[in-house]
């Protein structure tokens, strides 16, 4: 049996209330909220966050990591390698970037399900559109990760029953690399070509899965960036309303490349053993996959359920949203911009910079962050073991709000963090209001992009609040 071994979604903390758009421009926007990647998040960091959650709820190591996005932080350089490093995966694990096209998200998932080996599919997107446009309002930022493998690798939560594909060469939605917006043809044209393709793919997927009609599907997710085409497809499929998975448009927004996997994760978080789940994605044709939840789903304990993440969003002003997305240029702090990180220095310290791994002195047990060769206590040299800290919670010992330091989004909130079980390091706080920080606040490390200099993204770790007050050094559980 082959299928999904683990799955997790990541919804960034910041939320934009869509009504703020019309409040500002007098037009555009809509209802509900969209999830917004913070100024220090990109598809790589969000992908890492989702992948980390997926791997936490299973102790199975992938053999390959496929990263899919339409908004890569780098071209030419492999973004999956940064995720790989931040997950502390073995060098033998192959990390690849796929895509550029929105279709690649569901495509990678279907390729993994139909392939072999343990493959971690990570899909992430940040979605931009010009102010007041439909994409700005309906889109959202987010990520999802699905670990695919065989039952010989570990318990399969949902067995892959089958899938189908229909490919169309159609210029229905497009974007030039580097462009700030996508362009679309008349929406009705997209519905005209995608609707029949959806019906065909759907019938083929059902037939290949041995399921007799839409009534045999318990949880159905149909997604695509052309909402009229999605409605047409739903009609063509003949889905019953009770089986429809919440498309998360009103809370998260359409995360495009990540959305099929995100909806699959969401469906798995609610599925009972034996239930069938179908995901149909419309993009330059149609991809459809059908799975059946196994008995193992009853024991599925997501590290951070999507519903819980949605419930914990922070409120972001529209002005700040526009600044973060480079839609408006705000006056930068009158300080020199930081220098680019040294590639050779970063490479020597991959374990620290990406893996957030310090060192623990064998004799004194003192944790050194960053890793040291000579112990602060006792002075023993080269008597250290790695001390991975990415999953360790900590407590704010002291903090300050720096209104003078360079930051892509001032002010900088910095805290001296003491980690459970030992280790101290001063870290920048993120996903936090300066006013809510206090000594004793519980925080967890989070992988972020500190700034970009000379087109080099400087990735490192910050700390963010453990919002439901969960304590202990265990994975944050529902408290993401």
């Amino acid at each position, binding site marked *: 049996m082959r299928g999904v071994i683990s799955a997790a979604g990541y919804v960034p903390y910041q939320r934009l209330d869509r009504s703020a758009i019309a409040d500002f421009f007098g037009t555009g926007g809509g209802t509900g909220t969209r999830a917004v990647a913070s100024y220090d998040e990109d598809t790589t960091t969000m992908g890492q966050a989702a992948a980390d959650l997926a791997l936490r709820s299973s102790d199975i190591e992938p053999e390959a990591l496929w990263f899919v996005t339409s908004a890569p932080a780098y071209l030419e350089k492999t973004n999956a390698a940064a995720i790989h490093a931040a997950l502390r995966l073995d060098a033998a694990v192959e990390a690849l970037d796929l895509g550029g096209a929105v279709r690649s998200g569901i495509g990678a998932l279907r390729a993994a399900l139909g392939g072999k080996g343990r493959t971690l599919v990570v899909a992430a997107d940040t979605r931009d559109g010009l102010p007041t446009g439909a994409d700005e309002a309906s889109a959202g930022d987010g990520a999802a990760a699905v670990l695919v493998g065989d039952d010989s690798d570990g318990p399969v939560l949902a067995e892959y029953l089958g899938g189908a594909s229909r490919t169309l060469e159609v210029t229905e939605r497009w974007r030039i690399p580097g462009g700030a917006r996508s362009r679309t043809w008349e929406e009705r044209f997209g519905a005209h070509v995608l609707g029949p393709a959806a019906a065909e793919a759907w019938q083929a997927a059902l037939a290949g899965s041995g399921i007799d009609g839409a009534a045999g599907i318990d949880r159905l997710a149909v997604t695509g960036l052309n909402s009229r085409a999605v409605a047409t497809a739903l009609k063509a499929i003949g889905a019953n309303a009770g089986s429809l998975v919440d498309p998360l448009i009103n809370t998260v927004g359409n995360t495009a490349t990540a959305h099929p996997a995100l909806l699959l994760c969401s469906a798995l978080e609610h599925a009972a053993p034996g239930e069938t789940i179908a995901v149909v994605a419309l993009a330059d044709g149609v991809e459809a996959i059908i799975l059946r939840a196994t008995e193992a789903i009853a024991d599925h304990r997501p590290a951070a359920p999507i519903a819980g993440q949605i419930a914990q969003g922070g409120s972001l002003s529209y002005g700040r949203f526009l600044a973060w997305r480079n839609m408006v240029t705000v006056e930068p702090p009158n300080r020199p911009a930081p220098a680019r990180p040294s590639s050779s220095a970063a490479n020597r310290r991959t374990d620290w*910079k990406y893996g957030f791994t310090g060192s623990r002195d064998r004799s004194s047990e003192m944790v050194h962050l960053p890793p040291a060769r000579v112990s602060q206590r006792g002075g023993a040299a080269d008597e250290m073991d790695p001390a991975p800290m990415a999953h360790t919670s900590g407590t704010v010992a002291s903090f300050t709000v720096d209104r003078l330091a360079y930051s892509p989004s001032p002010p900088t909130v910095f805290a001296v963090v003491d980690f459970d079980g030992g280790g101290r390091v001063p870290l920048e706080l993120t996903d936090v209001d300066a006013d809510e920080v206090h000594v004793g606040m519980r925080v967890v490390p989070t992988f972020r992009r500190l700034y970009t200099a000379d087109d080099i993204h400087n990735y490192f770790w910050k700390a963010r609040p453990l919002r439901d007050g969960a304590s202990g050094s265990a994975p944050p559980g529902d408290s993401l």
Partner: protein
Amino acid sequence: MSSHGITDRVAVIGMGCTPFAEHWDASLDDLIIDAAHSAYRSAGIAQDEVDAFWFGTSQSAASGLGMAGPLKIEGKPVTRVENYCATGSEALRQACYAVASGAYDTAMALGAEKVKDGGYQGLNAFPIPTDGTQRTLTAAAMFSLMLPAYADRYGVDRDELRYVAARIASKNHHNGARNPLAQFRREMPAERICEMPAVAGMLSVFDCAGVADGAAAAIVCRAEDAHRWCADPLYVKGLSVVTGTGAGSLDPDYDYTTMPECAQAAADAYTQAGVTDPRSQLALAEVHDCFTPTELVLMEDLGFSERGAAWRDVLDGVFDLDGDLPVNTDGGLKSFGHPVGASGLRMLYEVWLQLRGEAPVDRRIPETGRTLGLTHNLGGYPGEIVSFVGVFGTKKER
């Protein structure tokens, strides 16, 4: 630590100090020349009679060439030293040790910094290539960690401690207003400082040192030769540098209410100088008030106040110009300004003036019969500090 010291073996025989200011019209070379020539005149010594030179600059020049060139020092050793904001004191220490060793009869320590050609406010570190994981906080933010930590540890109301910090700044502005070389010569009531917007933690810009260009220089010689040039030299009683390991940023036991490196340097310097009760023995102290919380905590680290009592002593005026132990009588970094490489020698300049009765009358310390003065100069941040403490006196006892 087996630190033997060089008590009474080296004397300061001349000093010079430029105004500290935004010297838009003066170059680093100008400042070096002005400070050096002023020191030569003060000692009545010719440049040719100085055997060796130590040049302290943090970021304004890269080698001894930066000093030998403008001064045209021919055929002599000129060495650049750097130790963060303690650079000027480090230059002095090297010059003193060189003379005490017998290697040279005379030496000059000169500190200079040109910070205002960068185009930005504040101090900006020269970027060393790194892995990009170093924190990017300002020094103000790092030192701002000390106020809430102190308030919590000693149960002081935060608003009251805010006022204490402002009172330190106000005192230093009061003193600086009486100093023709100082960058800021305006008195500033503590109440007004408290009303200013915070820029880092609880600190406002008036809790931060002035950023200035400037230079200062000292000429030292063997103590037994001092009277050849100077009727009333200052004798070096104790010199200490303690450099931390960065433990405070690593070790959860560190609580940001002290700078252990400073306490260790003070203990070492006091032992060398025979100081057992600094508060009653010192005539004045020039300390590194880069930010107001720094001066507060230093009063305890340097042994002027009991632990947890400095805030009260500040309110009681103990460190005022007419107090029991006047601190930063020239205005300190706060008001005199902080050209990084020059500050340590600027501190000694004030001790030079005060102990020898040359300070302007309106900021002269009361006559107490005390003959010792202290300079304390630090670089780095709470938790990772390089600290200098020097004790100097008018009486040679050995």
